[in-house]
């Protein structure tokens, strides 16, 4: 796992514990829509890989309902504790979180579905991780992932301040060795893990001066700031993090245009009913 992230697992200052992160809010409708298209249903048991703050597990929990169950795992205790607090605050009896490493998951072939959002992008070996996750699936089980294509975001017409911010983010991700096109590469990753070719869809969020995208970018840059400075990609004076969101908004107001977040790419497939390919 790299130490660079597009989203923070914990609550930010000024947020109540139950608030979803900005990226979670932007992505929520797309995740629900992909889950439904893929065939997530009431009564299913779902494994949420690298569950972070729990937002993806909560969406799955809504769909599987009171007779289903969602188990989220993450490798460090902080996100597990945080997501558990949020689940408790929402009174969710069908969603729980455990601490586990993907290489030593404490599950048998017991889940109807395994899901994850913007998680494989941080993995050094997504194929072997996915194979490990598939071992937790019943034969014929569902696999649903959403990952971004970081090279796809843009401003139309070109907004120079926003583009500079995007360049910083991409530089930081590139330095961290992140797979920029993980979304598209879900296709190869699924196949290499022994799954059939996935169905895939692209979703994206576009917004103007009045939307949440500038806040979202500013939040990401805030978490990247130490890396940006350490690698000499940008200085704190250049970034001026406290006014960054306002400057991006002013930029969009001036062009009258829009900015898009990187596209979110969903892929889903089923384990073969015999699952002999995973032996």
């Amino acid at each position, binding site marked *: 796992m790299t130490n660079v992230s597009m989203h923070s697992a914990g609550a930010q200052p000024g947020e109540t514990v139950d608030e979803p992160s900005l990226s979670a809010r932007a992505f929520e409708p797309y995740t629900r*829509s992909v889950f439904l298209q893929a065939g997530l249903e009431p009564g299913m048991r779902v494994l949420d890989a690298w569950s972070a703050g729990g937002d993806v597990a909560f969406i799955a929990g809504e769909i599987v309902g009171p007779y289903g169950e969602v188990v989220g795992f993450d490798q460090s205790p902080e996100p597990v504790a945080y997501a558990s607090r949020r689940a408790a605050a929402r009174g969710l009896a069908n969603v729980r979180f455990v601490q586990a490493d993907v290489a030593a998951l404490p599950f048998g072939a017991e889940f109807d579905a395994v899901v994850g959002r913007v998680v494989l992008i941080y993995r050094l070996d997504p194929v072997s991780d996915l194979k490990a996750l598939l071992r937790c699936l019943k034969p014929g089980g569902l696999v649903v992932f959403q990952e971004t294509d970081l090279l796809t975001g843009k401003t139309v017409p070109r907004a120079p301040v926003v583009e500079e911010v995007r360049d910083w983010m991409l530089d930081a991700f590139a330095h961290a060795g992140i797979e920029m096109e993980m979304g598209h590469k879900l296709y*190869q990753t699924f*196949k290499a893990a022994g799954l059939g070719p996935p169905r895939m*869809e692209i979703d994206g969020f*576009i*917004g103007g001066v009045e939307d949440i995208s500038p806040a979202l970018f500013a939040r990401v840059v805030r978490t990247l700031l130490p890396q940006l400075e350490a690698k000499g990609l940008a200085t704190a004076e250049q970034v001026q993090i406290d006014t960054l969101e306002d400057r991006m908004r002013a930029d969009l107001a001036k062009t*009258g*245009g*829009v900015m898009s977040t990187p*596209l979110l790419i969903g892929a889903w497939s089923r384990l073969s009913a015999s699952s002999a390919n995973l032996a």
Partner: protein
Amino acid sequence: MTSESTEFQLGHPQSEHETLSVLSRTFQTFTRQQFAEAGLKEGMSVLEIGSGGDVALIAGEFVGRSGSVVGIEQSRAAVDYATHHAAVRGLDNVKFIEAHIEQDLPFDTQFDALVGRIILMFLPSPAVTLRRLARHVRPGGLVIFQEPDMSWAKSVPSVPSVEQAAEWMQEVFRVSGADSEFGPKLHGIFKAAGLPAPQMRVDGRIYGSEGDGPALLAESIRAMLPAIEQLKLATADEVSIKTLEDRIRVELGAADASMSSPLLVSAWARLPD
């Protein structure tokens, strides 16, 4: 309007004998999703412009027998074609009339919703036309438009036949004066038309060698072939349209690559009460 060939290349069926193109089928799904998300409902009256009938028929399904749809087409032939398809699908709540969308419409009815797909991009002054059309929407009514963004299409890992076809497409668009990156501009067009800032989203599909992607791309290039030759981007021999789909399929398969469809950008807003 620009030339018909420009419009056709985006997936309009050429004759009633032709089945719906792969691209039209893909975009139909996005139109249904968008209508549901924006709140098009049973009983509504809808004004639809210039899709060749496809979008009006989807709207007809949404509003049901207690609702109604008026589709504007710019030629008698298009009206006849769309009317025929409405009859085939048994949708008697959808009717089509011939009118020029850049002029005042020959009625002053107020509708619950105004919708259109892949139409504003062909107009010389889309904001002016949108402002005029929006006068036919009641206070609190919905405006929903979907326009493409072709600039994002790519293959990963990059495959030569796909990249080459995408380049031809971009170039035909550029020369024909149509904007291949029109979709994201809907935001500014809504505002310039005096409408509220729209909510926006992007939809697309990704295909491997076994999916609809190779057929979709080859079909678009087939429609553009006259333009590609005329602009001397490539000769018919170089394009080899008959084998293009297969070549794309083989290249994708060999590289285990995936390719994206053109993206459809949706923008929707509700007028103030």
